[in-house]
């Protein structure tokens, strides 16, 4: 479980690890509108948890989130960060204490990556050394090369820019972060990787995070708790991902979560949590006969060619092993390579996308840990385990 038990004594001052966020009867009606965008919202987000606001477009999820940093002003009610109302004081000052990540990232194209990350420290007049140290630390934390500090945003890929966006939001170690569809503009493959990385990061920093998305799968993957919102700005259900999938509160939620709930349960399980199959692995230049012998008793009819670091390079069929020694080039390089931290659902998607029955599973450093097959997944779906609640639903990936 995430460490949600951090006590409320964490105030909302800088450097606090996290603070709880409480919505108290929050209502927003836009001028000229004839109904509320958000209606009488009560939510309590324990400190250190990711709360996902999910729902169809126009359900008020973004409005609900943006009232926290007052980029949208609420009509009535109150929001507390720790024990302080967001309405106290100047909005610009408040926003400097809340991390903010948006879908379009919004990096400043005229500032270097380092300057982008240093934006809020500079607004708060941190001295140069402290700022520089923080920038270096954040680049490291978000998996970016330290030499990126002097580059401009246009010189980075979309995924790298999004990491910078996260680093910028974390710059002054804010107790609360708002993330508005942060991975929405990223291609599906990179999105999965960024999600995994972010969960690993969150396991370390344990911020209180409000996360908006319209994608149920993302909500299930990212959320400790999920608030499903419906038109009119009301919460249809506020629950853990498991509860949501097992016991949808009403027809709307059931419909929204989707008819493929059984399949979605795959998203509650990670690849490393199931028993993977083993395939013979070998390096180029080894004796082919040894590998062929191993193949006879293997669950997988192919061998995996790996490099010196045990990182998979591709598959070898029996025909590839005709020669006396193992060839340098594998039969098919396009193996689906699956991150062990990926959910089973994404793993299956990768297998299907690759048109393959088998995929190599690698750990955080890219080393082979086993083979995922379509059969493993179908067996899992058929098992009693999948139908039960007692699966490690909200287990976050370990910090490896």
């Amino acid at each position, binding site marked *: 479980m995430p460490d949600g038990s951090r006590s409320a004594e964490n105030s909302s001052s800088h450097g606090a690890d996290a603070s709880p966020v409480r919505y108290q009867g929050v209502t927003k009606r836009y001028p000229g509108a004839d109904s509320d965008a958000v209606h009488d919202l009560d939510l309590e987000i324990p400190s250190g948890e990711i709360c996902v606001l999910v729902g169809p477009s126009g359900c008020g999820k973004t409005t609900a989130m943006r009232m926290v*940093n007052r*980029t949208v002003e609420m009509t009535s009610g109150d929001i507390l960060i720790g024990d302080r109302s967001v309405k106290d004081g100047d909005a*610009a000052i408040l*926003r*400097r204490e809340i991390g*903010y990540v948006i879908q379009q990232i919004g990096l400043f*194209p*005229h500032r270097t990556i380092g300057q982008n990350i240093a934006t809020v420290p500079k607004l708060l007049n941190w001295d140069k050394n402290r700022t520089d140290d923080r920038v270096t630390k954040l680049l490291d934390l978000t998996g970016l090369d330290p030499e990126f500090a002097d580059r401009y945003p246009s010189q980075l890929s979309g995924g790298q820019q999004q990491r910078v966006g996260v680093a910028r939001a974390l710059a002054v170690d804010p107790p609360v972060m708002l993330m508005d569809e942060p991975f929405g503009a990223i291609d599906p493959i990179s999105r999965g990787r960024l999600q995994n990385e972010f969960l690993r990061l969150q396991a370390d920093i344990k911020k209180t995070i409000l996360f908006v998305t319209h994608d149920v799968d993302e909500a299930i993957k990212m959320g400790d708790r999920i608030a499903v919102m419906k038109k009119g700005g009301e919460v249809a259900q506020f629950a853990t991902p498991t509860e949501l999938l097992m016991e949808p509160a009403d027809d709307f939620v059931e419909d929204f979560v989707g008819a493929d709930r059984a399949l979605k349960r795959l998203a509650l399980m990670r690849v490393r949590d199931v028993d993977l199959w083993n395939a013979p692995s070998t390096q180029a230049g080894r004796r082919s006969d040894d590998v062929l012998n191993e193949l006879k008793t293997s669950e997988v009819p192919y061998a995996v060619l790996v490099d010196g670091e045990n990182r998979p390079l591709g598959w070898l069929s029996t025909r590839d092993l005709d020669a006396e020694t193992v060839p340098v080039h594998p039969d098919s390089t396009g193996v689906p390579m699956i991150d062990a931290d990926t959910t089973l659902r994404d793993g299956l998607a990768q297998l299907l996308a690759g048109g393959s029955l088998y995929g190599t599973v690698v750990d955080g450093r890219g080393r082979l840990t086993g083979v995922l097959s379509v059969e493993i997944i179908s067996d899992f779906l058929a098992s009693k385990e999948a139908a039960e609640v007692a699966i490690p639903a909200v287990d976050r990936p370990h910090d490896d």
Partner: protein
Amino acid sequence: MIDFVQIAAVDPDFFKDRSGGGCIQDNNLFCPGWVVDNYDRYVDPTLQHLVLVLSAVGIGFAIAFSLAILAHRRRWLASPFLAATGVLYTIPSISFFFLLLPLTGRGTTTAIIALTAFTLQIIFRNVLTGLRNVPVEVTEAARGIGYTPKQMLWRVEIPLAMPEIVAGLRIATVSTVALATLAVFANGGGLGGEIISGSNLTFKTGIIVAGSIAVVMAILFDALILLLGRLLTPWKRAAAL
């Protein structure tokens, strides 16, 4: 009617004690000898021309830039500002000089006012376009991060509008250098005087020399502002790598 074939020496002292010989008497297209002997007479008009251009563009920039920032904050102001500067841009400068006649008479001030009026639209349009082209996600992020409106304007919006601002400044400056030759009609000095006076518009070499100084001045200003723009937008170069 002016006789364009012969030099109509309105100013009898014009060619006195200046060598150049037959070339000038025959009014050939270009007499290098004239330039060698008379380069000093172009110094003052050139300096006056510089004063006209720098004053007009400087004042024009200050006014148009402020108007553009106002119109960026309050969108409804953009249309009236565009219309007003559009009228000032459309009225030919030479006409403007004399419309001012009853108010400011003839002289440098009149010339600068008319030239300034001409620059407003160009600069206003470019600054406003630049500010409006700042990506909305960037301003949203800036707001969400905790920039005050003023900090956002000076640290985010204006730097990002810089390419358009600089482009407007280039167009305005180069056009004004050319246009300022007309200031002579307002008694405003400048290189126009060397095109018209002394020879009453018939001395080819004089026209070419004064015209060329104006063209070179325009090119130098253009290059200078271009360079300034590069220095102010280092991220543009990085993107091109």
